[in-house]
Each structure stands twice: as C-alpha cells, then as structure tokens.
C-alpha cells in the first residue's frame, strides 16, 4: 500500500495544455474522487498516474518512488476502465489471470489469486464464461477482479459505473465502498456522478480546465466551497447565486461581498409577508419525496427551492427564509469570503 504525491504535474498534447500544474497529496489507504465537468482532464490525470500517458512536466511519486518514467505495469497500480476492457477472446479466469501470466507468476499461485478474487467478488460460477456471456454488472466485477489479482498498491477507476443502469450503479457503488474498506488500498476514482463522489470519497478533488479548484472532504466542499464554481458544482440541485443587492434581505453581508450563494435545500417557504425576500412560483416540479420550485424573485432573478411535502402551485406569491449559517458570500473574483474571516 502506498501514498501518492503529485507535484506541479503538467500534461500537454501538442500545443494544448490539458493538465496545468496539479499538486496533490493522497495518503495511504485514502479514497480520492476526481470530479469536474467533461473535458477538464480527469481521465488524463488518472492515465498519467497509471503510466498510460507520459508526464510532460512535474513529479509523480507512488510511495517514496518517483515513477515519471516507470512502465505502467511496474508502478504497482491497477486500472478499471469505463468500458471494462475485458479481452473478448479470453474467458473470465484467463482475463483475471492475464496480467499475472504476463508477469510470469507460477500457475499455482495464479490459480489461487484468481480464486481468491473470484470468491471476493462472487464470480466463482462465472470463471469459464466469456465476456460476451456476462451482464454489465458481472463484467464490471470481472474488471475489478482483474485489478485485484495483481495486488496493486493503488487502484484507479475511470468512471467504472457509468455504463450501468441506475439501480445496478447504486449496488456496485456500495460494493466498491465495501471493497475499499476490506482491502484498505489507496483508490482514485473518476466520476461525473455527484452522489458517487459524495458517498465514496474520503477526499474529493474538484478539477476545472486542468487545475484543481478545491480539495476537501465531501462535507467541507458542501459546507465551505472555496469559490462559486465549486459551490455550484457540488450539490444537486445546484446552489443559487444571487447578486448581493437582491439577497440583502437575508441579512448582513461581509465587506466586499458581490454575490451570495444559498442552496435550494436551505431555503424555506413561508407566507409572502413573513419572508426575508419575496417572489412568485414559476414552475413546480414534483419529484416524489420533495418538489423543486423555480421562483421568480421580486428583484428579477430565478431561484431554486426544494420543499418537502405539499408544494404551492404555480403563480402563487411566496416568501423565502434562509438561515445565516447557510449563506455563502463571494467576492468579485467569485472567491468565497469565509465566515471565519467575517468574524474577525
């Protein structure tokens, strides 16, 4: 098992800078999730760690070893691909044992490691099948099994669940969490999915345009986003950002605050005259347990609110309340003005 250190890592494809200096420490046994909009360089960063892409500049360490120039198979990492990438001409047993065979692990030990992994992932009954004869979830498990048998220090996952249907995704998510608990390896996991990121991660890394926007625990990112981008990226539905003037009704603002953020789930509906600010319901989307309301504020902005239970109908006038604890203030550059700083 190993820690992982990225020092000012850069990647350039031709003339395009894709990773523009990423510095990150991953502790031994940590579960780190990379999130960010499409094309921000999540996969590229992961592939640099795996060794499938060269490092243009910077330093990459796994444990105490600088691995910039080390071949993928000798880094002690294993990767699970989005498309599973199972060898179609080999059965499940040979797919899982392939890497060991290439590394000339004796047949007996190979057999044993494959059986262990198969037992762990409940693949015993499927060992003689070919990938085409497996369901999506089973293929995913074989792909994970193939990573496990090599006893890697670090697991890398590139959107491993995005080809599965919603129900199976939830199930596999918990299996991966259980696997991490059981093996205790360092894991790096790329995803688009908010919920996956929040539930799995010890630490979330938010990327944008090849740079890190913020690193922190799911709670930190949710409660104390560093800037508007992170604030809106984490959490669903996304945070309302209102001009400071329109949000003045919510309470005192620190000096320099240009915009105010408040999450839809932190706003509550009251009668129009009791609200800190007022507005009118434009659309009411019923989603079962709760409803998502689009509200046109008196100042003209649109604001999302999540309400449990009965939702008011469209065109009704409402008032909005927000607790001061739930307000986020941002300066002209979109950087957060921290509450700690506010108190000083």
């Amino acid at each position, binding site marked *: 098992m190993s820690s992982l250190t990225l020092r000012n890592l850069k990647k350039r494809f031709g003339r395009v800078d894709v990773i523009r200096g990423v510095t990150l420490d991953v502790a031994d046994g940590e579960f780190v999730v990379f999130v960010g909009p499409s094309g921000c360089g999540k996969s590229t960063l992961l592939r640099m760690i795996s060794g499938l892409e060269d490092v243009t500049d910077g330093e990459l360490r796994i444990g105490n070893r600088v691995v910039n120039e080390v071949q993928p198979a000798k880094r002690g990492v294993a990767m699970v691909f989005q*498309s599973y990438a199972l060898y179609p001409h080999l059965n499940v047993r040979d797919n899982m044992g392939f890497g060991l065979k290439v590394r000339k692990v004796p047949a007996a030990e190979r057999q044993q490691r494959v059986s262990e992994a198969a037992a762990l992932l409940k693949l015993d009954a499927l060992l003689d099948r070919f990938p085409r004869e497996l369901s999506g979830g089973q293929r995913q498990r074989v792909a994970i099994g193939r990573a496990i048998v090599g006893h890697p220090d670090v697991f890398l996952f590139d959107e491993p669940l995005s080809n599965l249907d919603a129900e199976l995704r939830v199930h596999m998510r918990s299996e991966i969490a259980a696997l991490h608990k059981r093996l205790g390896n360092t894991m790096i996991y790329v995803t688009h999915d908010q919920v996956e990121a929040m539930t799995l991660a010890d630490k979330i890394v938010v990327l944008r345009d090849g740079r890190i926007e913020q690193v922190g625990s799911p709670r930190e990112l949710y409660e104390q986003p560093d800037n508007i981008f992170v604030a809106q990226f984490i959490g669903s539905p996304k945070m309302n950002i209102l001009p400071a003037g329109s949000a003045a009704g919510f309470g005192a603002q620190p000096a320099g605050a240009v915009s105010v953020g408040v999450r839809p789930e932190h706003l509550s509906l009251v009668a129009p005259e009791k609200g800190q600010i007022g507005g009118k319901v434009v659309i009411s989307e019923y989603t079962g347990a709760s409803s998502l309301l689009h509200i046109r504020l008196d100042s003209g902005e649109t604001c999302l609110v999540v309400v449990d239970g009965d939702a008011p109908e469209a065109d009704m006038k409402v008032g909005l309340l927000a607790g001061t604890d739930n307000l986020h203030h941002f300066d002209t550059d979109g950087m957060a003005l921290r509450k700690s700083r506010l108190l000083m």
Partner: protein
Amino acid sequence: MIGSLTQRQLRAVKQICWTLALCVVAIPFVFPFLWMISSGLKGPSEIFGQPSLIPTSFRWNNYLEVFNYQPFARQYFNSLYIAVTVTLLTLFISSLAGYALARLRFAGAALVALFLVSALMVPEEVTIIPNFFLIRWLGLSDTHWPLILLPVFGSQGIVGTFLMRQYFLALPKELEDAGKMDGLSRFGVWWRIALPMSRPALAAVAIITFLNSWNLFLEPLIFISSLEKFTLPLALSNFTDPYGSPLWHLQLAATTLAVLPILMVYLIAQRQIIESFALSGVKG
C-alpha cells in the same frame, strides 16, 4: 388456401421458395465446376461428343496419366509450399505493418499509408519488367524466390497491410491500454491482444493471398523455365499434345485436383470469420 396455413407452415414454404430461387441463381457458378469434374473423367473424344454431365464410362485412368505426363506431384507441391509461405509471410508482415500504421505515431505515417495505396494503382504488368531485371540481377531467375518475394512485398502485402490497418484502427484502444497495464510490451499488445481480436481480418487476408499466389501465372511464366520448378497454373497449361493443342481430359482432371486446397483454405478461413463474429460481442 395460403390463408389457412399456420405460421410455421408458412415459414417452411418461404424457406423452400428461397432455397429453390438460390439454387437457380447458383447454376451459372456450379455448372462449369461440375462440367470440369465430369470432363476430367471422360475420354478425349467424348468431351466433344454428345454433351452430358455423366460420362459414359468413368476414366479414372486420367488421374494416373496426369502424374505420368509431367512431374505433376512435384509441381503441386511447389504451388502448395509457395502459397503457404506467401500467406504466412504476408500475414506476419502486413499485420505488423498495419498495426504500426494504425497505432504508432511516427513522422510520415500518413504519407506511408498514401504511398501504399497509390502503389496499388500500378498494374502488375507495368512492374514486371523492372522486377524481371531486379530478379535477374539478384541471380534468382528460375528459382521460387520471385514467386514468394514479389507477392509478399508487392501488391499482396500492400492489400494485406491496408486491410489490417483499417481493422486495427477500429479496435477499442482501451483493450490495448489494459494490456499495457497488465505488463505487455508494444509487441506483446500486438501479438496477444490485437491479433487474436483480428481473426476475421487475418482470415480475409489469408484467403485472398492464398488464392492469388495459387493462381499466379505471369510471374512463373516469366521467371521459371525448368519443368520440375513449375507451379500449377503453368503445369496446367502444359498438358498439350506434341502440336500444342490442349489435352482437355488431362487438363480438367488436373484442374479438379488443383481446386481442392482452395476449398480447404476457404472452409478453414470461413470458420475463423464466423467464430470471431460470434466472439466480438464487445458491449459498451
């Protein structure tokens, strides 16, 4: 009437109709083939007598005569080993070259591909003269070398390279990445992942290469002069009487023998193609 048929009966009727129709379409292809087999069992006069697919008496003796007339067994073997060698070499070289063109980034890769394709447009009759001088200069006249080297490094190799390149381009890259993660070298990825997944393309290249080498006529005609070094196409045209007119009964009997390996190669390759289409259920 038709309306009273059950679904299953209807399907059977449809199937019979289709089969009959296809049989009719097949006649122009199958008939000459049958004619060849039948004439190979007739006497020289009967071939031009009353036309009939069934010989009045089966002259199995024709087949013995084929081997006595000239060193036919030797010639048959020549063709066989040359075609097998050409096929194996072409498979090896064109799959390697095709992989390089599809996956390696090197200066001028696109130019090389373009050059290969344009080389295909030059007809063989044009290149045969410079090749003739080249082979004579190398001292390889009246050997089998030109029959092996010219196809492998000529049009057959190019067609093969091109086919393989196109096929490799379409293979999922993540599989090769997985191979690299599993510790394979570039060469290992080619051999243990790309090739096993390319069986349909390899089979197609094998068929056309084997067929082409088997039927090669111009090159042997120009480069080979000794009877025992003849390949089949030359040998077949050599079944003549002292005045140079063909001995049809021998020629057709020999041709019947010459067709057998083609049928076999076709059957083997076809199985590869069908099997690997079943394999390629690469989902997602």
